[in-house]
């Protein structure tokens, strides 16, 4: 028990003293997460929208592929990305292994399927009723597309928040692709693993506190967005057909 309370006290002290090593990890996490999230959104939102909105041959296959990607453990993604980025790998020339962009690349592979899948599901679930509604109000093809996009905004924000939560707390990819290099690619999660391995529980707990706070904020945001995106806006009264 005093193990825990001791660690906690030291952790708070570290945070209050703005310990540079601790904040370097926090900073790197922020950068990597931002890059990966932006990349996931820039690619994932249009892809997810297209997947949910348009009917095209191979769509079910694409959906299946995305859901499969969702279920891959992050160590497997890490391994795949390592194999891609290693100097002897197909993308070795890019020199991305053990670098911040490399980690962002790997974490994008984690975030992208989340954004695509959640966006597609959101667009799909609103689509039939919304399409009918918009068409009956006189929307042309482009107006329909645009309005559907705007109507899915909360769901997309929810997808973004969820992806953020996964990316920021990820460790397998960050460790394998980033290499946990001090001052450079050490993130909150890899630092926690390292410090705990070294028996430095205080640093581990300090970083854990930061991560827990981030998680709290993200969860609050997700809760808020879920409330908004789930509201039905339904109009059909009672029974009748």
């Amino acid at each position: 028990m005093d193990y825990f309370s001791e660690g906690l006290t030291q952790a708070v002290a570290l945070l209050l003293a703005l310990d540079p090593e601790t904040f370097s990890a926090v900073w790197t996490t922020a950068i990597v997460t931002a890059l990966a999230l932006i990349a996931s959104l820039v690619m994932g939102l249009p892809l997810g929208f297209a997947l949910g909105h348009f009917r095209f041959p191979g769509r079910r296959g694409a959906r299946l592929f995305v859901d499969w990607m969702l279920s891959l453990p992050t160590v497997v993604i890490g391994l795949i990305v390592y194999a891609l980025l290693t100097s002897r790998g197909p993308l070795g020339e890019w020199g991305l292994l053990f670098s911040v962009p490399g980690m962002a690349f790997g974490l994008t592979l984690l975030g992208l399927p989340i954004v695509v899948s959640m966006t597609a599901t959101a667009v799909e679930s609103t689509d039939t009723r919304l399409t009918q509604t918009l068409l009956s109000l006189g929307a042309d093809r482009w107006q329909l597309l645009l309005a559907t996009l705007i109507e899915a905004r909360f769901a997309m924000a929810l997808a973004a928040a969820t992806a953020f939560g996964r990316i920021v707390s990820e460790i397998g990819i960050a460790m394998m692709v980033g290499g946990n290099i001090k001052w450079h690619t050490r993130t909150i999660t890899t630092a926690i693993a390292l410090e705990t391995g070294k028996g430095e529980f205080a640093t581990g707990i300090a970083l854990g506190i930061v991560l827990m706070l981030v998680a709290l904020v993200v969860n609050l945001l997700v809760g808020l967005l879920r409330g908004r995106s789930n509201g039905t806006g339904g109009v059909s009264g009672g029974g009748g057909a």
Partner: protein
Amino acid sequence: MRKLSVILTLTLALSLTMALTLAFAGAALAAEPILVGTTTSTADTGLLDYLVPKILKDTGLEMRWIAVGTGKALEHGKNCDVDILMVHAPGAEKKFIEEGNGVSRAEFMYNDFVLVGPAKDPARIKGKGVADSLKAIAVTKAPFASRGDDSGTHKMEQGLWKVAAMPLPDKESWYIGVGQGMLATLRIAAERGAYTLTDRGTWIKYEAKDQGKSGLVILSEGDKVLLNQYSIIQLAPKCSNIKHAAAKKLEAWFLSAVGQKEIAGFKLEGKQLFFPNAAK
């Protein structure tokens, strides 16, 4: 809802700014970074942290490292993912060079391993040599915690069973394959009342923190086979992408009188941990 979009937009914009700032900040660093593939022991003891500013001052190289098990470090070297290797598994290192992955191997320092176990010492190994100790542990079926992670320490332990002329007891119920770092293994050994092999650096740190509470003590030390030789390996020219020149420069520093003196000067809890032994 409008407020929310504003917040989201601001968050995104802020993240982007941060990302760009870092990109520029990174580019502004003048020192030439060199990436060392090394084992957890050199990093976790704090030796590399201690040497970084000295190396930067003497050579202009900014030493960075990926600290993993020896097996993985060698794999990184094989894949040309690091610029230079600093490892401690002579057998595997020689094979690494024979297979054409490295061109040279220079021994430059050593530390040593110790056999630790519960103070009650159920297998009665205190003061015995390593071979006799391991035999006694096996005969009494006293629990033994093994790193089990293909690290240098793990390889060393496997070699010691060979020295004791015994088969590797990895299928025995008293033999615990931990699969984690040294400190985790020590903690598990303490909890299970098991013997284990540890490098002295991790042991000193563990002992300083633990202050004898866990009941683990050194039971066998000083045996010649327990010496742990560290070498620097230059990677093969096939690794065209790496910094061969910087790697040579770094090696030269470690082998130089200055570098050797700095290694000896590193103290953990007041005790010297690494002993320079570069060939003159």
